[in-house]
């Protein structure tokens, strides 16, 4: 025993004597684990970090972005439930990188180098079951504000499918920032496509009939666990809601996606729990100019036992923090997601390492805060302006979404109905407001006074600003951002029905 200890000491001494930090021994493991999956040839990050030369060339910049925790991108707090594929460096790793630079970036002995992980080329999950590409490329200008654009991928599937995963391959990686995959079963998106002479369309003028997740750089495509899969009903089109950053030169994006199907329908259906629902539409978001800490809150009580798989948030530029907490019936509190430095650029979905079981009666609470002051560099307005809920990126939204399944497959309908009631509540709020201002009975007069250009339609710019977004969402069925006489008739019918319902 004694001799073994002294041998160990002997081995340690030369090690600590040569405490020099070298690339191959100390730095390469950090870089290969955390950076190279995106920072390599053909991937989304701006330069490659896969060997000594490349890392050495950018060392000071790497140290700086590590130190500020800008890279690797990871915005969920690590103090709560663990997530899969956490891209979060320890303080020790960041300090090690800095001391390597201080030592003059020594390369060290290549013999001590870890081998570069075997990153897959092309499709990360293997050959997809269905590959779909945008019919034509969209030109992203060299300069100017960020662009949000929707692209329709007509599928014309003859039968319902179940989707395990969707993988996206951009053609212009430097400009495509993220893309969300929505479904449209109404054909509306298809009819909007290309109307302004360019591929796709702007704004959210279609009703989403489902979602297949999304793509954010840095996230490894994953198949849903177990037999879980997302429904893709026949007749649905996929709409890619894409966010572009201009890169300094003109780029052409023609996205390809690969779909991976399940062989059989899942035993349990996925049900999202979004709090507040409708991306915060009913939460009354109305943030005064200059307000530095505007907070919204909402809760939802689970009617059934629920198994949460992942969690994510959605908001725009001036959101600062968001937190979703579950209070279990026994009083135990679980923080499901906390983001203290919200960044619209990194709208990640965080997968729990283990599914989180939330019993019936659990109260799920979301708290979201916004900074609409001039001190917030992300503020899209100079000087600050009043910001309300809306679809443009300079408007605000705010919600947190759990994705999961009811523990008992039979509970799906109950859960689904409960989430729909939440959505209905928002519309009934709008309805109540319109009823209170006696819109239905005064519709012809209101119509006349609003229709400034007297073309018989109420264009978006003619609608009262306060209700513009909600009115278009409810009534603009053809998505042309204008209410025609038949859409206005639908408003009258809806209000009359609501009023009849309320009077009963």
């Amino acid at each position, binding site marked *: 025993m004694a001799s073994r200890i002294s041998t160990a000491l002997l081995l340690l001494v030369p090690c600590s004597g040569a405490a020099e930090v070298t690339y191959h021994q100390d730095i390469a493991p950090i870089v290969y684990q955390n950076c190279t999956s995106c920072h390599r040839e053909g991937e989304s990050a701006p330069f490659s970090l896969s060997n000594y030369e490349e890392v050495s060339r950018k060392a000071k910049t790497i140290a700086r972005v590590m130190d500020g925790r800008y890279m690797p991108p990871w915005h969920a707090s690590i103090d709560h439930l663990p997530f899969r594929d956490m891209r979060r460096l320890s303080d020790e790793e960041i300090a090690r990188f800095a001391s390597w630079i201080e030592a003059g970036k020594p390369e060290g002995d290549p013999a001590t180098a870890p081998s570069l992980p075997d990153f897959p080329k092309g499709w990360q999950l293997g050959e997809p079951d269905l590959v779909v590409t945008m019919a034509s490329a969209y030109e992203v200008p060299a300069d100017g504000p960020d662009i949000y654009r929707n692209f329709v991928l007509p599928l014309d599937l003859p039968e319902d499918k179940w989707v395990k995963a969707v993988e996206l391959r951009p053609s212009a990686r*430097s400009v495509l920032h993220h893309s969300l995959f929505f479904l449209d079963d109404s054909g509306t998106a298809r009819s909007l496509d290309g109307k302004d002479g360019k591929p796709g369309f702007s704004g959210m003028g279609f009703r989403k009939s489902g979602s297949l997740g999304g793509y954010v750089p840095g996230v490894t495509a994953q198949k849903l666990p177990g037999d879980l899969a997302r429904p893709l009903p026949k007749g649905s089109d996929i709409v890619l809601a894409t966010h572009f950053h201009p890169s300094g030169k003109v780029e052409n994006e023609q996205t390809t996606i690969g779909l991976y199907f399940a062989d059989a329908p899942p035993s349990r259906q996925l049900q999202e729990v979004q709090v507040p629902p409708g991306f915060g539409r009913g939460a009354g978001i109305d943030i005064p100019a200059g307000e530095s800490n505007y907070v919204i809150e909402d809760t939802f009580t689970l009617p059934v036992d629920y198994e949460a798989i992942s969690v994510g948030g959605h908001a725009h530029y001036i959101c600062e923090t968001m937190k979703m907490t579950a209070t279990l019936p026994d009083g135990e509190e679980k923080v499901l997601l906390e983001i203290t430095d919200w960044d619209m650029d990194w709208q990640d979905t965080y997968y729990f390492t283990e599914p989180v079981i939330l019993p019936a009666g659990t109260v799920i609470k979301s708290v979201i805060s916004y900074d609409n002051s001039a001190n917030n560099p992300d503020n899209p307005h100079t000087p600050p302006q009043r910001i309300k809920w809306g679809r443009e990126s300079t408007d605000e939204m705010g919600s947190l979404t759990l994705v999961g399944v009811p523990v008992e497959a039979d509970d799906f309908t109950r859960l689904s109905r409960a989430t729909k009631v939440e959505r209905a509540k928002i519309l009934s709020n709008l309805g109540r407001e319109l009823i209170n201002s006696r819109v239905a009975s005064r519709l012809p007069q209101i119509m006349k006074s609003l229709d400034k250009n007297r073309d018989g339609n109420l264009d978006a710019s003619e609608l009262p600003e306060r209700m513009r977004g909600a009115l278009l969402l409810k009534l603009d069925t053809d998505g042309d951002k204008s209410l025609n006489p038949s859409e206005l008739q639908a408003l009258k019918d809806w209000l009359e029905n609501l009023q009849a319902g309320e009077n009963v």
Partner: protein
Amino acid sequence: MTLIRLILSLVFLVPSLSSAEEKEKASVWIFVAVDCPIANGYAPEMIRLQDDFESRGVAFTLIYPEPALSESAISSHLKDYALDLDYHHDRDHSYVKKSGVTTTPEVAVFDANDQLVYRGKIDNRYTEFGDRRNTATETYLRDVLSDLLAGNPVEFRETEAIGCFIEALAGN
């Protein structure tokens, strides 16, 4: 390019040029890297700056401070970003040292007496990594150039550039 223009103007326009107009009123060094996304994002603004100020007597030079860069990497960078500017490959970092810059993109402005009057960012579109305004609300470089061209006295000004750091030369 400037040289060609100068020769052309000497050939054709000598009688109409006063000696004061031949002398540059300011020169701007713009430090860039071929693979720095923040620097590349400024390429359209560099072109606009050239359009707005070159004819008024401001000389622009792109400086590539990365020693190991190949000439072909530089020429494809100029072509990709449609940059029609003079450039210098600062292999020995003499331009980096003279101007004291640390970052790409970063600019150094010298007045007609070759005095450094400004060092820092082009404008305030970036305040931190990932914090990008859609439009700048402060145009530092334009302000300095306008002051110089207006003949206003310009005291040395400095802002902190945001972008990719210029690595020290090996052995330094």
